[in-house]
């Protein structure tokens, strides 16, 4: 545990000295801010029109800030994370292998699992910072309307789980190559496949459909966006994280064997 904390601390220090992490966080925040501005502005226009024009109001049904702002907000965020998180995770092991610092790290009295947990929580800590930068959006919603805090809370919990899964995948990809760019592309591709199979599942055969939808990120994210924290979805993400952290560990071990 102590070792994990030391590695997390070091990862954060390194990240703030590296342009990659800063650029990633900045772009993430800018994109989220931009999308939020768009959704929120069109929502305000709609609700303003609804107040002045009862006919139109009927057409849209009850104008609901959860439906029109919060849910799309998290939907967009999940997509932006899918693109941005591989850039946070790509350097984790790839860079250490390329620069040779892995040789020292692995000869310190640190268990492989501790090294991996350190990297994982290091990335997760950066992600929390990104997430915190989106809080002002929700504050704005609360200022102008009356959002359902339960949905917002569930949405953020879902985001943390989703990001954990993205990070675990990214760490694994970073552990199998020395090239950061390759690591980023591989994890982006793998995540995209898992993101999209939910859509293709509908066209697959019946039992395949069930498997594909189970594997898909999207299916497991929907309930969070509705404000429900379903244990089976939580389990899905936790299993996903454990599975890929385990694979990363095996990959580190095999590095030792092959030298």
């Amino acid at each position, binding site marked *: 545990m102590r070792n994990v904390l030391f590695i997390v*601390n070091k990862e954060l*220090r390194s990240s703030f*000295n590296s342009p990659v992490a800063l650029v990633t966080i900045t772009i993430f925040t800018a994109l989220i801010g931009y999308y939020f501005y768009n959704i929120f502005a069109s929502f305000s226009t709609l609700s303003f029109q609804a107040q002045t024009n009862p006919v139109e109001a009927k057409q849209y049904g009850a104008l609901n800030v959860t439906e029109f702002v919060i849910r799309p907000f998290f939907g967009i965020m999940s997509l932006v994370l899918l693109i941005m998180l591989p850039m946070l995770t790509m350097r984790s092991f790839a860079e250490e292998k390329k620069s040779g610092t892995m040789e020292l790290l*692995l000869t310190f009295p640190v268990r492989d699992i501790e090294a991996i947990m350190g990297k994982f929580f290091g990335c997760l800590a950066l992600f929390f910072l990104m997430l915190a930068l989106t809080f002002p959006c929700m504050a704005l919603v609360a200022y102008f309307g009356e959002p359902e805090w339960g949905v917002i809370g569930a949405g953020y919990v879902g985001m943390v789980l989703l990001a954990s899964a993205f990070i675990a995948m990214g760490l694994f990809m970073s552990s199998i190559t020395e090239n950061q760019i390759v690591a980023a592309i591989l994890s982006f591709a793998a995540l995209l496949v898992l993101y999209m199979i939910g859509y293709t599942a509908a066209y697959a055969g019946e039992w395949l459909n069930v498997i594909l939808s189970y594997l898909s990120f999207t299916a497991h994210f929907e309930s969070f966006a509705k404000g429900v924290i379903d244990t089976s979805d939580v389990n899905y993400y936790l299993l996903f994280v454990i599975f890929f952290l385990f694979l990363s560990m095996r990959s580190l071990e095999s590095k030792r064997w092959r030298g």
Partner: protein
Amino acid sequence: MIEVEGLTKTYGEARGIDNISFHVERGEILGFLGPNGAGKTTTMRILTCFMPATGGKATVAGYDIFEESLKVRSRIGYLPETVPLYTDMQPPSYLAFVAGLKGLPYRRIKPRVEEVMEQVGLTHMAHKYIGELSKGYRQRVGLAQALINDPEVLILDEPTIGLDPKQIVEIRSLIKGLGGERTIILSSHILPEVSMVCERLIIIDEGKVKAMDTTANLLKGMGTAVRVEARIGGPADEVEKELGALAGVRVVTRTAPSNGELAARYLVEFANGDGGGHLISRLAARHAWDLYELIPAKLTLEDIFIKVVTKEEGVAS
């Protein structure tokens, strides 16, 4: 302190090291000598638990490197050949990170970092990023991280490679001062370095131990063989032939006269005894050749090294 028995490592089909055995006593400074590709780095990487051996066994500080690798790793300091450091950190925070991972108690970390930075002469570089430091100072950071846990065993892989002469002298004297209670293994392909720093040498080549003895003994063993350098004016081919026919001569090497000189140089190696300087002078007198120079020279460590690794007879392995 270190016991190595039959250590073997193959990289797929390729040879790494082959059946290496040796032991190092507590407080000893052992030199690991061999040309590039001999297997020095491979041996050190196995001893530091970076990678496992294909065969054989080894204990460091009383612990088996395979079974109790965490215990071994917390008792060693290792400086890899490439000195891999995090370039985006400053020395104090990097050293604090290593100190933490090596298990120093929280309150000991800061004072220990300052102590070690002082010891290796890094204090005035504290505010720089490691990536901005010169190779010599990076080497010091590397040494500092190896020393931070005050390890019983220090393993240094070619610690002066790539440094300029001034830095080499500085790092060498630093390493010399690290001995005492501590056991040190130091690898190098530079002979004066190990002979200056180490009490005992292991010469390895092509993955095998070729010779192992105290530095003094290795020199003594060769002391009987004597080389004489002679500059003789005369018909070169005949001179060479006659020199080769002298009693006890093993090899004669001829060097053409350099600019402005009239006579060629001959390097004559006698198997043992006092050498044959007197034989050469008599030979020259007999043939009325001009003897310009006659310089006896004892074999140096370089010669031993070349002999051992070129597999000439003369040094028992």
